[in-house]
C-alpha cells in the first residue's frame, strides 16, 4: 500500500467536512464539520511527515490541534451566547444585521 492512500482518505474527510459546512444549518454541526476538516489536514500533515522522514509535520499537526482547541472554546461560547439571546442554534436565524 502506498502512503498516498492516507492522502486520499484525508481528502475525502476534508470534502465531507466542507460539504457539512455548506449544507447543514445547525451551528454545532457546522462547527463539527470544521473540526473534521482540521483533522483531515492533520492526517495529511502526518502522512507527509512520514513520507519525507521529517518530524516537523507532526509538530505542525500538534499546533493545529492546539489552535483547534482554542477555536472550539471560543466558537462554542459564541453559540451558547447566541442561543441565550435568540433561543436558536440555526445559522439561518441569526440575521440581526439584515434589513
Amino acid at each position, binding site marked *: *500500500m*502506498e502512503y*498516498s*492512500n*492516507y492522502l486520499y*482518505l484525508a*481528502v*475525502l*474527510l476534508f*470534502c*465531507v467536512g*466542507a*460539504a*457539512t459546512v*455548506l*449544507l*447543514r*444549518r*445547525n451551528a*454545532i*454541526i457546522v*462547527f*463539527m*464539520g470544521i*473540526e*473534521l476538516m482540521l*483533522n483531515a489536514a*492533520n*492526517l495529511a500533515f*502526518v*502522512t507527509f511527515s*512520514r*513520507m*519525507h*522522514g521529517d*518530524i516537523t509535520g*507532526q*509538530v505542525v*499537526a*500538534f*499546533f493545529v*490541534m*492546539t489552535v*483547534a*482547541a*482554542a*477555536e*472550539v*472554546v*471560543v466558537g*462554542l*461560547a*459564541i453559540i*451558547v*451566547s447566541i*442561543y*441565550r439571546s435568540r433561543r*436558536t442554534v*440555526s445559522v*439561518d436565524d441569526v440575521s440581526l444585521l439584515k434589513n
Partner: protein
Amino acid sequence: MTSPAEAVLFWCLAPLMVLASLGLLFARKAVHATMSVVFVMICLAVLYIANEAPFLGIAQVVVYTGAIMMLFLFVIMLVGVDASDSLVETIRGQRYLGWMIGVGLTIVLLTFLARVSFDQGIGHSATVDQNPTAIARTLLGNYVFPLELVGILLVTAALAALTMTHQRRLHPRVSQKDLADARVAHGRRLTPLPSPGVFAGRNAMDVPALDPDGNPVESSVSRVLRARGQDQVAFVDPDIVQLTEAGESAPATWNRVNANTESAPEAAAPNDSVDKSTPEEQEK
C-alpha cells in the same frame, strides 16, 4: 511502502471512517452526528499511531475525543438535544449549490491527487523509537516562539469564553435571610409544617397529625393528597380519650396494643393482615 498489516488496518478503518463522517452530513440529530465524529477521531488516532506518530495519536485521543468532542456534547445538552435542522431555505438554491460545490471539490482534489506522483517515501525509521523526544526537540528547539504564542492564544481563548458566557445578574440575589424576613413581614407560619401522623394512631403519610386537643391538623398532610381527597380522617384512639377524661397522661403510643387496628378498614393492607404481632413492628 507500508507493511501488509498496516494495509489491512487501513482498509478496515478507512471505509468505516468515511461512512461515519457521512453521518455528520446526514444525521438528523446533533447527538448522532457527534458520536459519529467521535468515532472518526478515535480511528484517526489509530491511524496516527500506525503512521509512526504515537505522540500525536495519544494527543488526538486526549485532546479531540476527550476534550473537544465532550465539550460539543455538553453544549448540545445545554442548547437542547432535539435542536434539529430547519428545512426552510433562506438562501435560494443553497442546498443545490452546496452539493455542487462539495462534490466538485471532492472531484478536483481527488483528480489532483491522482495526477501527482509520490516517491516511495522514507518513513520515520530513524526517529520512531524516540518519537516524543524528537518532537520535543523540534518543538522546543525550532518552534519555541510559536509555542509561546499558542500559550497566549489558549489563555486568551479561555478568557474570551468566560466573558462571552458571563451573565449579568439583573435582580439582587434572594438569600435565606430575605425569605425569613418576608415571612415575618407577611405574618406567615415561621416554623416548618407538622409532619403527618404525629400523635395520631398511625404515622402514614395520609393521616393528619393531632394537635394537643386531639383535633386533626389539616396542614400536616401533603397538599397533593388533600387536593386528591386521599387524606384519611384522623384516627382518634378511644383509650386516649378515656385516659384524658380520667385526667391521666396517656402512655407512649408504641407501648399499647391498638384494639381498633384489626377492625379498622385501613388494616386491610397486606402488611397488616400478615403480621398481627405487635404494633411496634407495624410501626416500622
